[in-house]
């Protein structure tokens, strides 16, 4: 069984530095519910330096949603900001931090494929 959410946080944590997060500083807490259980990740960002743990740090921004949706967000199948407007993702605390963080979520695979085709078409 695949675990996009777990893989996303593992990969982010192994990066140590993520250039796209250089503007962000603070602690984000992710509570991802799955049926009756809740998995928790804490992401500490300091100008792009990232550390990920399962610790319950005091968060500047707490993000709560369910696993199927978060899986879809990290894979680029769903958009995080629209999900917030729908109330499917709840945020508490500083919304700016999440706006800065959501850059690391992937875009739709189809969009990338279409661009690759377009670029190939131009150079041929």
């Amino acid at each position: 069984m695949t675990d996009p959410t777990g893989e996303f946080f593992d990969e982010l944590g192994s990066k140590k530095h993520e250039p796209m997060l250089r503007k962000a500083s603070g602690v984000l807490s992710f509570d991802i519910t799955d049926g009756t259980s809740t998995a928790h990740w804490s992401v500490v960002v300091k100008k792009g330096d990232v550390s990920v743990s399962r610790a319950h740090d005091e968060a500047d921004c707490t993000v709560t949603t369910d696993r199927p949706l978060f899986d879809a967000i990290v894979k680029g199948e769903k958009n995080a900001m629209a999900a917030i407007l729908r109330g499917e993702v709840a945020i508490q605390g500083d919304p700016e931090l999440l706006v800065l963080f959501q850059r690391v979520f992937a875009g739709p695979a189809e969009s990338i494929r279409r661009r690759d085709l377009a670029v190939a078409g131009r150079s041929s």
Partner: protein
Amino acid sequence: MSDGLVQILDGNTFVVSDSRGDIEASLTDPTGLFSFDTRFLSKWILTLDGERLNPLSVDDLQYFETRFFLVPGTGTVYVDAKLSVIRRRAVGDGFHEELTLLNHDEKPVEITVRIDAASDFADLFEVKDALKKKGTYSADVENGSLRLGYSRDTYRRATLISSSAPATFDDTGLTLLAQIEPHGAWTTDLDVVTAAGVGGTYTTPKYDRKGTKARPNMERSLDKWLEDAPRVESDWEPLKTTYRRSLVDLAALRFAPPVMGGKSLPAAGLPWFMTMFGRDSVFTSLQSLPFTPELAATTLLALGDWQGSRLDDFRDEDPGRILHEMRYGEMTAFEERPHSPYYGAADATMLYVVLLDEYERWTGDRKLVRDLEQQARAALTWIDEYADLMGNGYVSYKRRNEKTGLENQCWKDSWDSISSSDGEIPGFPRATCELQGYAYDAKVRGARLARLVWKDEAYADRLEHEAADLKRRFNRDFWVEDGEYFALALDSDGKQVDALSSNNGHLLWSGIVDKKKAKAVAANLMGPRLFSGWGVRTLAEGEGRYNPIGYHVGTVWPFDNSFIAWGLRRYGFKDEAAQIAAGILDAADYFQGRLPEAFGGYARELTKYPVQYPTACSPQAWSTGAPLLLLRTMLGLEPIGENLLIDPALPQGIGRLELLDIPGRWGKIDAFGRGRVHVAGRRSQRQLGLAEEIMPKQKRKNGKKARVTA
């Protein structure tokens, strides 16, 4: 906006009602209480003993506050009323209404006061397009209040209605009993609070029940805003009126995005465009830099936060791209519209870098330039990596979201705005000329910032080299030889779309025009085909699609003209810039200082007054900013190092112009301009220089004086 509607607003919360203060939304009358792009009240009707009221007068106290004076009876014959009603309404997180009944009779009276309330929770997009809702409604009476609700899956919006005087609530409103002594008064405070529930938490009322002195939740009061802005002194009175109108409207147009912690940027237009627009927010910030530089700072920060990071065809998003428009309503939430945010603008990204540099030149705030280095580099990278759709070295646009994306991604965004002289409309992608100018300017300015602040000499050299190369190619490929101007665009085959347009002025502003071509370009801008006497037309007379009342094909846009004037000054055409300032400021006087988005392109001598183009939004931010930029161009204000260069060139009719306490890296500075010619009896003269007075040959005498006060 339909006639007779009254609007008040605070940020993106606004109320549109009829002259009685009632809200009765219909397809033709888009009244209501709106917040975050959602209508939270579509009905709000006051009756006394079952009767509607008659308006006596409406007193617009401030843009956020108004007062309705009413009497009972709706007949055509005015009856000497024994009762009058005052509704004082202020907008906040919803609105607060102080309802007062005055009994003018010698007898006590007992009146049943009824307010019918309802909400359709329509998305602004639905209001425009009359679409059907997919969720369910609710109405609950709880704890002495009425809660109107709407839900669709996890999406929830609610409107809470409460009253300070005892009231009986039901699903469709509230009823109160007013017992009033002879010559007495009865009052209640009504609160309507919108609950957006963004992120699961509901906003709380800003006004408590006793808060009869309802104040909008603005960080700074209007008074302080006006006090902090530079002062204008002039012997030409209309200029002072226009300036004040611009400042007040700019205050009303401030919008604090939820991520900005209360800081404001200019939204695009009131009331329907009270949101972040990349292009409009940047242009307005540029216009207002010498007056209210903090708007530019917030614009740069907010647009930087939302800068694109990935490829997303639905949103037309690319890494580094600056957003076009942000919306918060239901259709955006359910991805039926791409505005979360939508990125389909071809110019905003380059203009973002232009604004960052211009901001530093005025304020000396290098910290912000350092903080936004990554954003600026990503924006500059976007130009070559993602905007060159044809692989020919020019920025062009073609939407990837073919259902709900924007076809036209330049400022002239109507379907027929880009055409050749014979009226033919090209396909996509399109490389409009002004985009190449902005790209050039962004690279030149980016190079300056790289050298000065980011300390990256190699990057600066590279950008300058690219800019020079772009300029060389552009002056070759876009130049229309026989007309001596730049083509409006190149089509997808690289062929010139050869109409003569106002875009040439933006090219002067960007600096991409070869010096030896500038004179011919200026002559075309000021010639009879483009210059109407009021300003430069969007499209020249004689072009296939020219129409003096066509949105982007012949009308005169004040915003457009303010940048054209700046461009003319950049190339040393002071008289021509002054002529444009004169025309636009004369037009402003006809509109009581509030310039519309556009007005007809008819020749000035034909209509004598500017014919307004009907648009939904007024004031429009970049029209509001136009007089500000024209003040700058008339006084020739240009930051040079730590100093402000002042080089006035005033139009005839203005004998004296002073701009006092201009904020900037110099502290505060005053600029003085003296008119070139003394015109006898000029005080009675209402209008500035007319078209036949273009470019007087006599040498002018300009006052040139600067005083540092801090």
